[in-house]
């Protein structure tokens, strides 16, 4: 009797657990039943996740405003924006099924692309190189060759890969110091040079009291590394299954960006709200500066926002090939979907 009661309770618990798990584990595949177009008012929203490349900041303003202003919703999407960074690398999140969409550098995406888990670029948001190497003039670094045997701070993991390739291609034998996100190593002269995004770290250094004229800047695009960075990616498998949803996601994202750039004050408030909600240092001034510098990247080709230029793709392929990092060469048409 006791055993049968125990069995019944066990069955009941298993059933209850199953029901609960069914409620919680509403996978995107299960929620996505049909394509929705913007013109048709969505009857219900499809839940998807978007993992940004880094921590919340104005670099990803388009996503916040697409959600905030209902562009995602108009395309039938309920998007959860997930913070990336070293604790949650976007590619890892994508391959582990923790996100449907993510933001990555073009060269990272081309490098990570592989036959088992092919990727597609849905929109190339940033259409301009943003990576600089910054040093202080008083360190007597005047050209790239002066970096030999110097300490150069490079972001660890995939964020700094292209800079490592850059140094390699230019035959620089520097002592590479892996960086997290801090600029304090640079400010405290623990390193001679560090990589920086022109829209982020460069301004943070200026906002530590260093004058632009006291800095020496190597813009990677001046040395043939005109690599575009932020793009929106998903897996080929997901795209093949939900092509319209993916395209709608990209469209809403671009609309979000255009809105963000047209309404910078409103956008910065939303960005800062996201940052505060995630306990990040939130600074209107820095975020305004960042959004302003994102404008020239997003609107590099105002008539073609979100377009991946084939030459940019080719450059990324060539760099990876030169560095022996191209595992899965694919045609441009198979990589970028508009």
């Amino acid at each position, binding site marked *: 009797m006791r055993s049968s009661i125990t069995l019944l309770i066990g069955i009941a618990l298993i059933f209850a657990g199953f029901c609960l798990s069914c409620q919680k584990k509403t996978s995107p595949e299960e929620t996505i039943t049909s394509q929705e177009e913007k013109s048709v008012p969505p009857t219900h929203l499809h839940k998807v996740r978007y993992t940004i490349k880094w921590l919340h900041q104005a670099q990803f303003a388009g996503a916040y405003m697409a959600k905030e202003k209902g562009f995602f919703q108009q395309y039938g999407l309920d998007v959860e924006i997930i913070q990336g960074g070293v604790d949650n690398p976007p590619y890892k999140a994508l391959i582990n099924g923790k996100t449907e969409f993510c933001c990555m550098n073009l060269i990272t995406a081309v490098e990570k692309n592989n036959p088992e888990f092919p990727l597609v670029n849905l929109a190339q948001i940033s259409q301009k190189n943003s990576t600089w190497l910054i040093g202080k003039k008083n360190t007597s670094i005047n050209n790239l060759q002066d970096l030999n045997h110097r300490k150069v701070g490079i972001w660890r993991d995939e964020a700094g890969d292209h800079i490592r390739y850059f140094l390699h291609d230019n035959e620089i034998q520097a002592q590479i110091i892996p960086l997290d996100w801090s600029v304090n*190593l640079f400010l405290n002269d623990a390193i001679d040079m560090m990589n920086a995004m022109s829209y982020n770290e460069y301004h943070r250094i200026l906002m530590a009291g260093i004058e632009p004229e006291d800095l020496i800047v190597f813009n990677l695009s001046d040395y043939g590394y005109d690599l575009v960075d932020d793009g929106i990616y998903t897996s080929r498998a997901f795209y093949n299954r939900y092509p319209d949803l993916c395209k709608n996601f990209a469209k809403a994202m671009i609309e979000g960006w255009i809105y963000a750039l047209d309404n910078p004050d409103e956008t910065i408030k939303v960005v800062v709200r996201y940052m505060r909600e995630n306990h990040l240092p939130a600074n209107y001034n820095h975020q305004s500066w960042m959004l302003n510098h994102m404008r020239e990247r997003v609107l590099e080709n105002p008539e073609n926002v979100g377009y991946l230029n084939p030459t940019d793709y080719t450059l990324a392929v060539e760099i990876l090939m030169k560095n022996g990092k191209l595992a899965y060469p694919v045609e441009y048409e198979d990589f970028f979907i508009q």
Partner: protein
Amino acid sequence: MKIATKPCTIAFQIISFMFIVLVLLFVISLITTSRLIHNVMESNARESFGNITKINVQAIDHTLSKIVTLGRDLELLIKSPSYNESELNLHLRQLLIDNPELVSICIAYANKPITSNNTYLLQGKNFLINPSNSSDFAFKDWFILPQLTEKPYWSDPWFDSDGTGTIVCSYSIPLFLKGKVQGILRLDTSLENLRQIVSSIKVKKTGYAFLISKNGTIVAHPQDSLAMNYTVFDLAEQLNSPKIRSIGKSIVNRESDFVHLNKIGTPANIWMYYQPVPTNSWSLATVAPDAEVFADLHNLMYIYIGWVLLAFLIIAFSIWYRTRTINQPLEKLVDSIQKSQSGVPASATLPVSDTYEIQVINTSYNLLKNSLKRYAENLKAVTAEKDKIVDEVTFASEIQLNLISNNKKPYTTPLGISAFGILEPAGLVGGDLYDYFSVDNEHFLFAIADVVGKGVAAALTMTMISTLLRTYAPQLKQPEKILSNMNKFLIENSPDYRFVTMLLGIIDLKTGTCTFSNAGHTPLFVLSEDGSITKYAKTHSTALGILESLNASSETIQLKPGDEIVLCTDGITEAISPEDKLFGTDRLEDVLKNLKNPDPESTAQAILNAVKSFSGPNKQTDDITILVVKYINYR
């Protein structure tokens, strides 16, 4: 263009003037006083702010330097050969218990297993040892910075998820082994401890303090949105203030100063003192609004302005009151004068005043008023007398004009003679005379005379001459005798200064001879029908009334029929043009020459017209007399 200004009262003018002077003095005084007091107060504020900042910097530094000391002791213990893990744990536990400023300790090695990397902390009374993963801490500032620089390092505040789960400030000491950094010893103090020190600082009423890291990050600030979010340079950029950026650089350069900032938000104007914390190169800044720093100065200025306004009002009232006592008599005086002007001086009330000047004016006015009254009465009497005289003179003038021959009475001239005379006195009555009449059936007398002077006296003399001429002519019949007798009469009966020039002639109507005698008179002209002019300028005696014995002679000329005898007084020959030129006998001759078919009237009128044209608008100053006698001889 001259703009008419409205006259103002004396009180208004004095008060206005005093107001301008007082305002100028007040402004100069206010600026000077304000500057002086401002400088003194600024100096005091610098000292006061400095003291508050220094005391609190010392309090912060005390906490931090204690951490440094503990860290050095601990470093020695770790490095000691008798290093024992269990003893170390006990020591760390005791260290955390004895030093509440120390919230956690971490010992981490880059190349050792995770069990060697621990964070030690107290949770209540429990001593916890939390392992740390090198893949996490190896990239954090507190680890990598001292590792690279091989020097101790004070970190910016950071969130320690492996330890207390709070924001801490860490002092990291590199642990060397064989000359290389193998690990890091980290001692943490809670940012909250430092925040409490900072938040307890009160400067003036609403002033506050804030803590800045060595990179300019605002670490602790009463405004939470700024703390850990903004650097001083962010604020400078946001407020577009190069001055704040310059101050920020001074702060990160570990300098100390007392500065004034304006237009930076709310409050707009502040004073700030900043000073570095020696141990970790952070800086503490104390801030207070300008209004509070200089509250005493502002209060003083308000009181000062109030007193000055009060003083001005008192002075203005005093001036008004005093000038009123002066002005009132003056107003009465003015009223009295105005009434006097309207002809009622007697009824005007004179003011009573104890002011010397007013009394003098009163006395003078009284004298003036009486004098004016007398003058007005005299003037009235004189005017009445004058009117009477004018009436009489006008009457005399009429009588005088009646005495001389009238051109409109042709019976006064005999047959064969035509005559025309013009007499235009300069005043109501004149001193000139012309006359012509028949002495008997064969003789025709004509005469022209000019009594020296003008006016009534000259007119009376002329009347007398005219009467004498009419009296003597029938008896004496010779010009020189008539003149001599008239001279004698004038000498005997006329004042010394009265004399008369005269030309007198008698035409014999039968023969056409003309005998004339000129007693100091202007020449006689004979204008013939052929246009020739003969001038007889010779005088036959002196003017009448000068010498007792005249000794007059005469001159006889033969007139041809149609000859015109032209006579005039010096009112013609001495007429003056606007250019101050005399008319003269030459111009007279020119007039006569240009006559065509003359007769006495046209000749006389032509002369008169020429003289008036010559004189222009000049007022006639002398009597003008012209006499033309034409000999026709019908016989």
